[in-house]
């Protein structure tokens, strides 16, 4: 009996220890193969299948490598990654990176590999425009996979129903469009306030139009919001609210989950427009009644504003990339180079219904709305990153929440700036 209880205790201890030790990576496994772990955020459908297929193809060319692909739910990604990166044994070798302050934090903790000399020349030339997002202090830390410029997505059918023949180019035209939609009994704009950032995107875009590029960059670098253009940005949000154009109960409407989300409202013709990034066609595809691409989905650039000092063709957008852990084997970089070249980037574009970062693969874009985006993107004078990405989660969240507060009638334009300043003190 004594022996048994000792044995049980030892077994329990051994389980504890082995639990902590499992999940090692970046080493050779039992078959003598190099094992690479990769984390991405496409848990369903074509996106998930894409990464699995890419891994298979790479393993075929490199028989000594085994790639473990793990799909992590998008909202869980940041938290899980943060914990995993603390220990090279459990950390993935390749992981999703959205750029901005977030990537900078990883880099400053010495957890990301400097890829400047490791990215192949082919990839470097083909990626030229999207490279900036993954570059920190002149060094490349992540290789971009997609560019996701924002703008206004709309239902062509609903526009037609309201007698709108042309998409608006200026803010005044936009206001007329909203009025026409309201007169026709259609909810003009869907916004997913529950996730905060979709509402805050309106503020970002107004800021991009109101502020000169110098002021805009200064705010990004020093968090300096003293210029009067930031007050005007708040006023613009107010004038948007005065239009009473949003869906009812937008504060608790999620952005992407289910038919009652803001993307769902657009997908099901319950609202006519939504301000979103370039991932919209892919998201909407899962929310239409027949799970097919939304046939009448259209896109137009954010309207210009004559009061503003911003460049009227400047646009804002995100870019998803992949970073490599500082502990990863060379083969991880090879895999990243492999998927970033034209062939797999074209497949990426099809699988995700999005614009690939690789310029030469952009011919693979067939969706009409995305082609529209691409033409706006290629004519843009500059592409800024989403402000919450630039600022990182701490200040970014405070900014987003400030905007949501204002939209819910709980704060002023000044409170947004105050919230940003108080968040800066916390982290």
């Amino acid at each position, binding site marked *: 009996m004594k022996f048994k209880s000792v044995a049980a*205790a030892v077994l329990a201890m051994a389980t504890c220890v082995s639990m902590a030790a499992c999940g090692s990576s970046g080493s050779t496994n039992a078959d003598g193969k190099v094992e690479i772990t990769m984390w991405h955020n496409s848990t369903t459908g074509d996106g998930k299948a894409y990464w699995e297929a890419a891994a298979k193809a790479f393993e075929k060319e490199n028989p000594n490598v085994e790639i473990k692909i793990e799909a992590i739910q998008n909202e869980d990604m940041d938290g899980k990654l943060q914990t995993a*990166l*603390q220990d090279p044994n459990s950390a993935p070798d390749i992981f999703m990176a959205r750029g901005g302050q977030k990537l900078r934090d990883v880099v400053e903790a010495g957890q990301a590999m400097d890829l400047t000399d490791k990215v192949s020349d082919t990839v470097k030339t083909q990626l030229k425009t999207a490279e900036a997002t993954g570059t920190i202090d002149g060094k490349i830390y992540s290789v971009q996979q997609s560019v996701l410029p924002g703008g206004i997505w709309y239902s062509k059918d609903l526009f037609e129903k309201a007698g709108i023949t042309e998409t608006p180019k200026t803010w005044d035209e936009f206001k007329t469009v909203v009025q026409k939609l309201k007169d026709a009994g259609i909810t003009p704009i869907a916004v997913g306030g529950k996730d*905060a950032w979709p509402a805050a995107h309106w503020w970002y875009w107004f800021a991009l139009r109101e502020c000169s590029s110098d002021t805009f960059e200064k705010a990004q670098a020093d968090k300096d919001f003293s210029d009067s253009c930031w007050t005007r940005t708040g006023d613009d949000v107010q004038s948007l609210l005065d239009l009473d154009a949003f869906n*009812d109960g937008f*504060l608790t409407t999620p952005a992407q989950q289910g038919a*009652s989300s803001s993307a769902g409202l657009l997908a099901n013709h319950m609202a006519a427009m939504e301000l979103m990034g370039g991932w919209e066609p892919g998201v909407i595809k899962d929310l239409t009644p027949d799970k097919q691409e939304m046939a009448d989905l259209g896109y137009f650039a954010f309207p210009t504003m004559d009061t503003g000092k911003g460049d009227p063709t400047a646009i804002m957008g995100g870019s998803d990339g992949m970073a490599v852990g500082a502990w990863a084997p060379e083969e991880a970089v090879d895999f990243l180079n492999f998927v970033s070249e034209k062939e797999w980037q074209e497949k990426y574009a099809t699988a995700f219904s999005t614009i690939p970062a690789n310029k030469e693969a952009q011919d693979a874009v067939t969706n009409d709305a995305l082609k529209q985006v691409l033409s706006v993107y290629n004519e843009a004078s500059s592409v800024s990153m989403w402000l919450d990405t630039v600022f990182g989660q701490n200040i970014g969240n*405070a900014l987003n*929440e400030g905007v949501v507060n204002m939209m819910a009638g709980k704060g002023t334009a000044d409170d947004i700036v105050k919230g940003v300043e108080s968040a800066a003190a916390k*982290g």
Partner: protein
Amino acid sequence: MSASAGAAIKRRQSVLTDKARKRIEIAILSLPALIMFLGFVILPVFMAGYYGFFKWKGYGKPTVNGQFIGFENYKIILTDPNFQEALGHTLFVVVASLVIQGPLAILFALLLNQKFKGRALIRTLIFVPYVVSEVIVGTGWSLILQTTGALNAILKKMGLAGADWISDPKIAIWTLMFIISWKYIGFAVILMIAGMQSIPEDLYEAARVDGAGFWRQQWSITLPLLGPTIRIWAFMSIIGSLQLFDLVYIIWGQYVSSTAGTSTMATYMVREGRLANNYGYGSAVAVVIFIISLVIALTYQKFVLNRDLEGALTDEKDAKRRAKRAAKEAAKRAKANGGSVAVANEVISQ
């Protein structure tokens, strides 16, 4: 002689090894649980205390990638209007839960303690929400209460105007209170019924003989004798309310609970710690929540709960007085009889 002495020694030795063996067994069997408890409860508490002194992003080590700032985090927490708001909401939930659920639960329990047809079914029904997981409750109610949800659709058909039950900051906290009451009242009712069933029936019979009506009986017998149950329930309710997180997080999501006026200390901690990536600051918030909960729990235990240690049928002063008197008498008797103190002890312990 020597042989019997040897046997006695041997026996004593075997008794000792028995004891030792028992101790070893206890130690070994409780070790895994102990390791888990120390590793996953006690250690994190101290780690949080340590991290709370740093301005730290959660990447790398706080001493390398963070910055030691002493009590700065705590200063910010206590002066942050968002935290004060969250604390206010939490305390509101604590008080409102007691005020709303307490009387309702007692009334329900009184009703369900009577004998009538279908009692078991109704008892089960009232307990079901408590068993259902928070995620399902939260998702279900948020679908029903959305602006375009089922409730407003029904109201519209009845010709009534609905409301933004969860989006309107003026209503949202009451909606939350309604859902909390709906979910947790079953637990309170079951506790109260159990408490009522332990009250001796002859007390009611005696009261009836004395001519007490139904309400008089409940007021003078049930309520006082239910005291210990009510106090224990209130304690659990307070602790539960202080920790309130999941329902709010599911219905209002990661970002808008403070806008909707339903943020709690726990949602504030997750928002400022994990979502904002400020693990140092978040740890400090955790410590503040820990201290607030600890103080409330200890105070409650000291001033309210300790009377229950004296026994269920008497109140504190009475019990003390009676115990003292009994002890004195027993001691007197013991002296007179030259008996042992054990008698006195026995009486006191009774």
